[in-house]
């Protein structure tokens, strides 16, 4: 019974919600193999997920490959308000970052590879319990971005590959909060800002393997500005104030930051691989969250909330051991600095410096078909007093994410 219920739950949320629990609202669940090895491995191409992780590295995969993966994320945020010593919890839906990769070559060992990557490297759905103390800052935020990236890669020398892709990001935003005005029965007002967003960017990578044991990759995914040209603002307020909160359009934009990754892979023998990735994430782009309403009133003016995020580094590392040819065991972990400065932590992204651990397993049923699974766990604690809302307390986030992908190559 329980299995059926949970299965239904998964289906319901499949391709629906992502729960942002990497730095900011970045989601690093791109490849199950990387998810087993501490989210690192951009210099160790494994399957078609390399199209996204480092397009240049795909040229050394001599195959056509289809990969489909999903990583249900179970995230729980608890906020303990420091002055009232009361705990409030999130009841966010299960997130489902997913990825689909298709990589082709026209003939075996071809120099040119091409493919398509569809995945969700950014997103967040967070919902707090009813009547929580921060309800006038946020009750629910859903950010969704699906990256569609056609990609080409070329082997320019025996040991060097380059690749690039054009990224179309389609997304949606739905932000809700309560408004501190009460009607005659004491019910608070509510605001919902919703809209579809679109943005464009690119993804470049270069890959170099100077020796059989060592490979190095450098990739750059550009910043993408997600624009909401036709947002819809809906306000539920007492009748007497309806004119102050007119429903109508709004515009806004949200930057998805650039990600630069320098990766190393060392595999002294075929049964053993160590990977290290260093990420630089350009969160500095997230300076302000602005909403421009079509109709302004004395109660509804355009908002400009400072975010002042900082660009950050993240260090990720993992190992893979293959006790036999068909089985791979993986373990890894990492540390990411938090882009959110003190005074700017919001219920949207209750983020802090994080340490996390991962486990993974890969199994090839035959030459063509393999399954990879991973498990991710992190716990983040962050105390802050937000300068805009004066919301003051400690956020504790526990997230765990078991992932699964199926790969078929020919």
């Amino acid at each position: 019974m329980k299995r059926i219920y949970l299965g239904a739950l998964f289906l319901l949320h499949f391709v629906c919600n992502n729960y942002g629990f990497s730095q900011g609202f970045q989601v690093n669940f791109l490849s199950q193999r990387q998810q087993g090895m501490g989210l690192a491995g951009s210099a160790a191409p494994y399957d078609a997920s390399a199209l996204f992780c480092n397009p240049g590295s795909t040229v050394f995969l001599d195959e056509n490959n289809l990969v489909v993966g999903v990583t249900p994320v179970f995230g729980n945020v608890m906020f303990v308000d420091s002055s009232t010593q009361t705990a409030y919890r999130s009841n966010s839906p299960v997130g489902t970052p997913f990825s689909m990769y298709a990589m082709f070559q026209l003939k075996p060992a071809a120099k040119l590879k091409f493919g398509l990557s569809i995945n969700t490297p950014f997103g967040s759905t967070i919902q707090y319990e009813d009547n929580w103390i921060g309800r006038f800052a946020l009750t629910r935020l859903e950010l969704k971005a699906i990256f569609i990236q056609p990609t080409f890669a070329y082997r320019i020398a025996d040991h060097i590959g380059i690749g690039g892709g054009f990224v179309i990001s389609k997304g949606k935003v739905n932000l809700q909060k309560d408004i501190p005005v009460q009607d005659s029965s004491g019910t608070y007002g509510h605001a919902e800002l919703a809209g579809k967003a679109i943005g464009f960017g690119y993804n470049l990578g270069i890959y170099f393997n100077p020796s059989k044991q060592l490979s190095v990759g450098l990739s750059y995914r550009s910043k993408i500005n997600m624009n909401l040209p036709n947002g819809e603002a809906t306000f539920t307020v007492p009748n007497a104030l309806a004119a102050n909160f007119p429903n109508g359009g709004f515009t806004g934009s949200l930057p998805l930051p650039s990600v630069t990754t320098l990766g190393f892979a060392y595999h002294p023998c075929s049964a053993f691989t160590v990977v290290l990735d260093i990420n630089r994430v350009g969160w500095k782009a997230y300076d302000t969250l602005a909403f421009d309403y079509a109709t302004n009133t004395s109660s509804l003016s355009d908002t400009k909330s400072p975010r002042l995020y900082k660009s950050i580094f993240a260090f990720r590392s993992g190992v893979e051991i293959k006790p036999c040819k068909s089985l791979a065991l993986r373990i890894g972990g990492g540390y990411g600095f938090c882009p959110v400065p003190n005074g700017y932590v919001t219920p949207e992204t209750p983020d802090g410096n994080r340490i996390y651990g991962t486990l993974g397993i890969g199994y090839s049923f035959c030459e063509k078909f393999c399954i990879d699974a991973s498990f991710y766990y992190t716990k983040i604690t962050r105390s802050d007093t937000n300068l805009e809302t004066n919301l003051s307390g400690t956020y504790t986030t526990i997230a765990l994410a078991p992932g699964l992908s199926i790969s078929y190559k020919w």
Partner: protein
Amino acid sequence: MVKRNSFFKQIVFVCLFGFTLTSCKPKENLLPNSPGEINLQQFVAIGDGQTAGYMDDALYLYGQQNSFGSILQTQLQLVGAGEIYNPLMGNANIGTNSSLLSKLILGYKTDCLGATGLSPVRFAQQGEVGALTTSVYSSQNKFTNFGIPGFRMIDISSSQIGNPNDQKYNPYFGRMSKDQFTWPVWSGDWSSVQENIFDGGYPTFCSIYLGIEDVLPYARSGATQNPMSPLAGFPGIGFEESLTQLCEQLNSQNVKAVVGTIPDITKMPYFTTIPYNGLNLDAEKAASLNQIYGPLGFSFIVGPNSFMIEDPAAGAFGVRPMVEGELILLSVPLDSMKCHQYGSVYPLRDEFVLTLAELQVIRNQILAYNQVIRQHSNLYGFALAETADFYAKLNDGFVYNGVSMSSKFVSGGAYSLDGIHLNPRGNALLANVFISAINKTYKSSIPFANALFYSSTYFP
């Protein structure tokens, strides 16, 4: 290797299928609450209308349940305080003021110009009249809230305010007094508030928030009547000795207390909502006023002008324009101002205005009262709640958990519709000032109230 593999598979299995989210929830590590050096076995809140829950110009049940006294005790209950016993009114919403009018709500009102807009209006045609003549005293459940609307510091041991035949009789006290409207033969005199508080045992801890009513009635009369309580004089006459007498009583029984200072009441919306220079004139009206007042040396311009007021000290005619800093009270007849040239052709009467000189006197008196309160808190080791600082912060405006609070009338979120008493949310914020003081002085850890749990103004 095989063993670890199966362990790993188990984890995946548990998380994928047998998942109960509880295992992944962060644990609550809340700071432990502690009463510190105080004993809350018997708590009593002593004060005026604010402590009673008087708001929207009436005492009504919902207000009482959300009074400063009740909210403070609700928090104190987390560290051992007992059940709250309020002298509750019968009806949740009607209530009554001393003129037997019901509470104010925000409704629609059409003014003399025919414009309909939001305005405080009476909730019912008549207040909850019988409530003031019905005793709610119970010898079983001693009141934990001795907040009494209109109660002054100098009334603390007065037998007059409990005497229905006395001019100083306070019906809000009468209905809760143990005398139950009957002259107590055995003691020979009507019992005082203090006697009621100490009846059947002293409290172990109390909050004292008195003094506003020693000056407010004077300010509300435009400094024309209801003189302020003098500083000096015997208990019952002078502010200082009345407080000393109470503190001595408490101290003799080792009762601990938190005592609040008095805010600058002249910064409350009742006094600050109508601007002194709100006389907006067009060319025609300005010319006509210039004709009238030109001979007196006053001139008017197109646009905003000062209202005209009566001031006996102002020249032979006793009329002058207001100057910046002077205040018009919310009791002023607004329709007359809008439609009948009240405040321009006809100067505002003294009772609707506080002049700079009057304000100076009032503010000096508050400073003097506060000096006395601070000295006493110091002398008796009582915690001191600097409510004056809180009210000043409210005047500047601040953001509380994403909600803007200020002392603006109606929209500020903290004052009730009478422009003097706080609403439930304001009371919660005020209670937090007292909690902060208690925690500091008595080394206790009492959590603050969540003010957003308490309501603000309701809009139609």
